[in-house]
């Protein structure tokens, strides 16, 4: 055991260049994957922000008594998809329109009658903000007698859906591509370490070392490199995150990975290092 560790560390001392390259490669690959992961996380976060704005507006027929509306609102809030129901009377509707739609403020300024109806604004729960659920709720709303019309920006919601899909797809594809490239580069790097030490391995076998004995230090070396690479990549990603977050005030509120995610990343690094070593050394030992 002591011997195993000594051999593994000897490898670092002997080939500092190759070791550094391996660690850098692992770090860089994880960095790339992590960067995309971070972008994906932040994108999801941003989409969630947009999603909270998904709401259904149900216009209420002029002259509906307030009790009817209150009862219905209670009813609606018990729908499984519904998060909150708010009542907006005619006056606040006008005030809101004037505040939000700058370009038509002038137009409304001169109005003597308020052309806007009262409405119920319904927000949905987090899992129910896709086009399908929204339509379903809208349909049920329309069955209420006092409801004139239901609006929910169908196009906007569908666009959100599509954005979500595209973002997921792109993240997955790029993440996978990077992971594949990472594995290839790591495998090749370690294979090169093995090749560079082919003479040494050959001599070891000639004096009777078993494959396990030869493999041990390589595996440990791979695992250590993976660990260091993983830690380095997290440092890099964090540096990038801080740098980027600092210089672009527009994108404030960026989120970083949480501890379990970081641990998974490090474990992934160790697995890469270990796997690369295992494959390369194994193949070499079989072929010789």
């Amino acid at each position, binding site marked *: 055991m*002591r*011997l195993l560790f000594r051999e593994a560390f000897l490898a670092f001392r*002997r080939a500092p260049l190759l070791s550094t390259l391996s660690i850098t490669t692992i770090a860089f690959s994880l960095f790339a994957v992590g960067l995309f992961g971070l972008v994906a996380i932040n994108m999801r976060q941003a989409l969630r922000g947009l999603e909270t704005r998904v709401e259904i507006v149900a216009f209420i027929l002029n002259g509906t008594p307030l009790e009817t509306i209150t009862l219905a609102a209670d009813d609606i809030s018990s729908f499984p998809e519904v998060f909150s129901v708010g009542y907006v009377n005619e006056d606040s509707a006008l005030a809101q329109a004037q505040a939000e739609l700058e370009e038509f403020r002038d137009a409304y300024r001169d109005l003597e009658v308020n052309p806007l109806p009262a409405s119920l604004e319904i927000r949905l729960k987090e899992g129910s903000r896709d086009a399908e659920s929204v339509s379903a709720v809208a349909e049920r709303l329309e069955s209420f007698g006092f409801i004139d019309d239901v609006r929910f920006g169908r196009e906007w919601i569908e666009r959100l859906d599509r954005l979500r899909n595209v973002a997921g797809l792109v993240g997955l594809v790029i993440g996978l591509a990077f992971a594949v490239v990472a594995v290839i580069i790591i495998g090749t790097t370690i294979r090169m370490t093995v090749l560079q030490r082919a*003479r*040494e391995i*050959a*001599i*070891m*076998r*000639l*004096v*009777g*070392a*078993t*494959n396990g*004995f030869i493999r041990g230090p390589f595996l440990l070396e791979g695992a250590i490199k993976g660990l260091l690479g993983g830690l380095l990549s997290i440092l890099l990603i964090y540096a990038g995150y801080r740098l980027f977050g600092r210089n672009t005030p527009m994108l404030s509120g960026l989120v970083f990975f949480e501890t379990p995610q970081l641990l998974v990343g490090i474990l992934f690094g160790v697995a890469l290092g270990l796997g690369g070593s295992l494959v390369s050394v194994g193949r070499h030992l079989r072929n010789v």
Partner: protein
Amino acid sequence: MIRFNHVSKAFAKGESALLDVSFRVAKGEFVFLTGHSGAGKTTVLKLIYGEQSPTSGDVHVLGFSLPNITAREIPRLRRRLGIVFQDFRLLEDRTAEENVAFALEVTRARPESIPSRTSRVMTQVGLASKMHAFPNELSGGEQQRVAIARALVLDPPILLADEPTGNLDERATRGVFQLLRDINAGGTAVVMATHDLNLVRQTTNRTIELRRGEVVYDSAEETAPREGLA
């Protein structure tokens, strides 16, 4: 301990290094393997330690048998052999001492015993003062003696030495040869490939002579006709 049974060895390009070679080496024997350059001496040794596999015939060593030996068994065979390679095969990034100690580590010798065993053989080959030198800091003869020390340190039942005195002066050659004889006296079988005929002539040890891959003379079979010899 070693038995060659109608062994031939040919290479991919069609050249054959050994042709129908048969001989036995008994426990505790000392055998010289002689022959011109390219006669097949190294090939015989490589077959014994399993670096090459016979094209036909079979080789039996210490209960293992080639070509049927499994990949798992080869390390077990080699750990019971002491081998001095013609081209030394030292690990470049380890000191002389570490090279010798490595052979012990591979056989999982008790760690406490390693330093003393290592320095004992280094003294035997006259390199006590060069323990911490790396191979490229050693002269040719010094490297050769490290290779010899590494083979000796295992106290193996069989010692294979391929031209172990090629880079040594007369005095060092005599020293190494005496060392091999002492070890042989302790019960170790020794097979030594050499073309130092002075050495061979000085002793009465058994001699096997190869010529173009064939055994043309074996002093243990003196009664048999020495075919091919003028």
